[in-house]
């Protein structure tokens, strides 16, 4: 470990931005229909182009890439916020039960025959509702008790998983495919309207996340010292819970349950840009917005016309890469930190 530490310079962020734009470009140039890169670029420059290429680029690929970037950034930022607040590197953004609540609502809605357009809003509302319930159960004094938060999140997640299983059993063979696809994470069939539905919540979640950052920096030294330097720990806890609830519920509504991103990306972000919350939040968002569009492009192009579920692909590719990075003998000494 180096004795001297220098803050990451502008080149680090330039490289992260370049990687992100490259991933977005790969997402745009990849798809079931093979289109020459030049035609894609031409269509991008001409939004009103009334050709098949224009439709594919503007109505299918561009919204999908944008959604992938939003999902990746939201999950990565949520994972980072919760890991920083709970000072625990094994926390993932689904800890608070948001995804399980959404999954249960989606499964029950499909089993009950709710019309397809109403399913995502129901999932979103259930996700937020679960976060509010978990926060209510975990509150103590003016703030949140971390152990109660974890217990409430894990218990409710178990309950909702049971509900999903029941719904799957009821739907039986064939009928359960929609629910299963949703549980495995997928961006298939998503468009601008889906993004428009959750965009205000994503924005609100980002604002709350940004507001929590200075306090999270002080919390690196523990709750006692943070309080002594003037941090309102209870306010920070509610900010983080509110922000992650909005971001995760929005992400889950767009993509279903995409695991791995929220757990792993914050670790990589801290390795690249250090533990300052301001830097890690930005780098985590950029890395999330790189990883998910890239994974989605891969999911679409590995076995066309079939799509590999995004969550499955990320686990198959990402977990070995992560284990290699962290568990090789000369790798990082610790998960927490750098």
């Amino acid at each position: 470990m180096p004795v001297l530490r220098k803050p990451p310079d502008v080149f680090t962020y330039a490289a992260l931005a370049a990687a992100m734009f490259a991933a977005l470009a790969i997402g745009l140039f990849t798809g079931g229909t093979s289109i020459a890169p030049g035609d894609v670029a031409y269509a991008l420059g001409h939004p009103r182009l009334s050709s098949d290429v224009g439709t594919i680029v503007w109505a299918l690929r561009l919204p999908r890439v944008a959604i992938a970037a939003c999902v990746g950034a939201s999950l990565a930022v949520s994972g980072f916020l919760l890991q920083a607040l709970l000072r625990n590197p094994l926390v993932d953004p689904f800890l608070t039960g948001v995804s399980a609540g959404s999954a249960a609502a989606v499964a029950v809605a499909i089993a009950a025959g709710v019309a397809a357009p109403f399913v995502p809003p129901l999932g979103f509302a259930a996700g937020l509702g679960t976060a509010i319930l978990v926060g209510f159960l975990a509150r103590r004094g003016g703030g949140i008790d971390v152990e109660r938060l974890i217990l409430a999140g894990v218990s409710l997640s178990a309950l909702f998983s049971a509900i999903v299983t029941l719904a799957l059993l009821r739907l039986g063979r064939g009928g359960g495919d929609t629910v299963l696809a949703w549980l495995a994470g997928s961006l298939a069939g998503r468009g601008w309207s889906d993004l428009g539905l959750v965009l205000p919540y994503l924005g609100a979640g980002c604002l709350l996340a940004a507001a929590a950052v200075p306090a999270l920096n002080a919390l690196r030294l523990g709750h006692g010292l943070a309080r002594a330097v003037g941090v309102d720990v209870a306010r920070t806890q509610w900010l983080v819970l509110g922000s992650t609830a909005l971001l995760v519920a929005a992400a889950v509504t767009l993509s279903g349950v995409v695991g791995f991103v929220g757990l792993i990306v914050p670790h990589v972000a801290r390795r690249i840009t250090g533990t300052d919350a301001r830097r890690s939040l930005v780098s985590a968002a950029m890395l999330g917005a790189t990883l998910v569009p890239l994974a989605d492009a891969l999911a679409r192009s590995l076995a066309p016309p079939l799509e590999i579920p995004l969550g499955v692909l990320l686990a198959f590719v990402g977990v070995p890469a992560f284990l290699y990075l962290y568990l090789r003998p000369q790798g990082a000494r610790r998960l927490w930190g750098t």
Partner: protein
Amino acid sequence: MGHLSLRDVRVAAGGRRLLEGVSLAAIPGELIALVGPNGAGKTTLLRAIAGLAPPEHGEILIDGRNVATMRPRERARSVALIAGDAELPYGTTVREVVATGRYAFRAWWDWSQSDGDLEAANGALESVGLGAFGERDFETLSSGERQRAWLALALAQDAGLVLLDEPTSHLDPRHALETLRAIRGLARGATTALVVLHDLNEAAAIADRVAVLGDGRLLACAPPDDALDPAILERAFGIAFDRVSIDGAARVMPHGYRSVAFP
């Protein structure tokens, strides 16, 4: 800046009284050493003054204002507390750690770090002799350097009142002395310091007054020669003390130190 006044303070937790009837006043620039046996309420007293353990009776005033009514950031600009519960930050430079003391000087949602914050952090590092350590990883510091870095964090907080909980624990005599000198240097001018120490002679060496706490009550708060009275110490610690004079200054040691007999 740095006026402290406690009036008949009682603090309880979990149905147990931790402090009872504590009254104390400190003037700017004064250094008070707080001594007493384990569990006497020393840390609780510091936490109460810092607004982290609200008293159920009595009041604590800093510069004439009641701590209980201050908002967290406002309170942090008046009183700095370095307790033993700070966690070792991973992957963080010494300067970043010290700059945490500037949290209360910005809006709580503000990401920026002003030149003033940086200057305060650098100045604090200089004043504890760690000027060249700013870019070092905090984890690579020795125990003595870490203690001084925590002290620098309290200095960066620029508060009139500084509370330190056992700043010399785990330190060898040389590093303890260096740390005590840094504390003594800080408690000149307007900064008031209340320092918990276990070594009674360290307390006698640096403090203007020594406060002896026993079973949640303040047994004495007086200049070292008066406070380190064997009768008061025996009441606090439950063992007999011998008092000696070194170049006219009173020093004490447990009576049993003459020869420790094995039963």
